[in-house]
């Protein structure tokens, strides 16, 4: 065994934080979030998963797309792409999969989104395998293992005496080479994970679910009676990506009027999501909007871009003030097909 002791890992993170933006699980007024840290002392080591996913390191909740400078009739546009490298430590396999889901839309489908692409390019993911499933986790339904290394650059797994370090990508390899250059003792190792907890999937074959017959199901209206259209399910989701774009005025600068064009997270649960100027709204009821959320995740998105737009992280179950449970929805749609469901 050649595990990396926690102190050595902490030292590595300190070195990383010195040169790049290091994002790690951090306690922010009692809420666990992925946030920039300046030293390993701020890192929370033992956790199930932070309240929000790593999504906002790539599509921030509010992001500037352009600066607009107006002088008389003249307009100057300044493109604002993110600069600087970031490393995210403590990425759970579900969140890493979320990035692959978003890659399918922002990178693999033309035109490439340059804002997302830049951040993705400049970010290295250090994964941290889960010891066990949280109460609302159902990642195995999505085919993700607790120590799934596929979607990160370097995978860490807690083992006797510290962490086993797995190199997954060239980016991960470069990160480790850099660490060795700093004199850190890092040797790649395939961990033994025979002690991993396992979980029966909620649905045995998610891809076989037949969604269209459920489109006109009264189930959606029934479910929506509880929905507040608060949209928190989309904001905590590692795979939701809908956004709004608008211009906001900024303080003027030497007689130039300045504005920023921003995009911010949005959700199809909101009543105005599809409403157009003039008032027409093709999706006026909560049932229709909730239905769209689940059809998008499991039927539309896979058809449009490939992956299922859910990673089984269970955050939406935790966050919903009305206990709307995505696994119950899957079980409902799965029942006709006779798929097994264990919740």
């Amino acid at each position, binding site marked *: 065994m050649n595990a990396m002791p926690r102190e050595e890992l902490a030292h590595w993170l300190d070195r990383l934080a010195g040169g790049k933006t290091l994002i790690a699980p951090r306690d922010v007024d009692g809420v666990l979030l992925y946030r920039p840290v300046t030293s390993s002392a701020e890192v929370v080591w033992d956790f199930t998963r932070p309240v929000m996913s790593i999504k906002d390191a790539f599509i921030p909740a509010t992001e500037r797309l352009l600066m607009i400078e107006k002088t008389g009739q003249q307009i100057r546009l300044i493109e604002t792409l993110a600069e600087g490298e970031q490393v995210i430590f403590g990425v759970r396999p579900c969140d890493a999969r979320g990035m692959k889901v978003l890659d399918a839309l922002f990178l693999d*489908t033309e035109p490439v989104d340059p804002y997302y692409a830049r951040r*993705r390019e400049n970010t290295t993911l250090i994964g941290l395998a889960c010891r066990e499933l949280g109460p609302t986790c159902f990642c195995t339904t999505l085919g993700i293992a607790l120590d799934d290394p596929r979607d990160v650059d370097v995978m860490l797994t807690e083992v006797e005496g510290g962490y086993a370090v797995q190199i997954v990508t060239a980016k991960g390899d470069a990160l480790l080479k850099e660490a060795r250059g700093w004199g850190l003792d890092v040797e790649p190792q395939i961990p033994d994970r025979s002690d991993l907890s396992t979980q029966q999937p909620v649905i045995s074959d998610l891809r076989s679910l037949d969604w269209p017959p459920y489109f006109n199901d009264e189930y959606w209206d029934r479910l929506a009676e509880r929905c507040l259209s608060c949209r928190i399910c989309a904001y905590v989701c590692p795979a939701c990506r809908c956004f709004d774009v608008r211009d906001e005025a900024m303080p003027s600068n030497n007689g130039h009027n300045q504005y920023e*064009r921003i995009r911010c997270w949005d959700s199809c649960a909101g009543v105005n999501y599809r409403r157009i100027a003039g008032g*027409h709204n093709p999706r006026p009821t909560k049932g229709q909007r909730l239905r769209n959320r689940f059809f998008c995740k499991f039927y539309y998105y896979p058809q449009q871009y490939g992956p299922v737009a859910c990673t089984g992280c269970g955050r939406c179950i935790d966050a919903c003030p009305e206990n709307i449970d995505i696994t119950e929805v899957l079980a409902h749609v799965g029942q006709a097909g006779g798929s097994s469901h264990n919740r």
Partner: protein
Amino acid sequence: MVHANRHNPMLPYLGRLVEVKDLATEIKLFRVELLNGGREAFANYRPGQFAFVSAFGVGEAPFGIASTPHRTPMLEFAVNRLGAVTTGLHELGAGDVVGVRRPMGNAFPMEAFKGKNLIVLGGGIGGAPLRPVIQTVLDHRADYGHFTILWAARRPSLLVFTDEYDEWRAAPDTDVHLTVDEPDATWDHNVGLITELLEKVAPSPESAITITCGPPVMIHFVGKVLQPLGFTPEKNYVTLEARMHCGIGKCGRCNLGDKLICVDGPVFSMAQVGALLESFL
């Protein structure tokens, strides 16, 4: 993953307004001269495509392009003042700079329409994306069969492109029918909904294609009238509108079931629309 050479699809081209003129009550025509690289991007846009227009400092919104590149190097947009962006645009005048992003979406299959009798149905501001269709047919008149234009608005003051009707009427083998719901004292054309006008004109479905653009409820009821006239949904083309924030298939806004109006549309046949899980209404 290096994309440095690509044009940022969210970065607008700049365009100078060379003319802003009243088309109808609260509807203005904006003529835009493209400035920084936009001319190249918009060299070959097609009837039915749309673009995002920015009123800088307010925001941007999608508008059907009302011009054709073979008639003018300018881009033309007919804008009905309804929300924040359209109000922002209405406050601009000649010399002001707007932003324009990409020609977006698919287009009317004008090649496939060749040799067909065409019936165009435009309702209110919905006439804007049909103007390029009309101009293309008039400019290549021999390529198409009989041409019927059904043009409607709630009131005479809301009819768009009124100063072009004489040109349309003067074209060979072309009929123009106008109707309004609420006539004024000087109105001497049809009165009633466009569906009633359609029933009255009753075009033959033989080798014919209809192209409909207007409010969703109009598209729906035109489809209902076309069926008994013998037009199958495959022969009825429509252009749909939706709230959008990117126009390039990213923001998720404009989905109709598993289709996105911005990239899979805005032009659909009613057969395609009917096959979708979700209603556009």
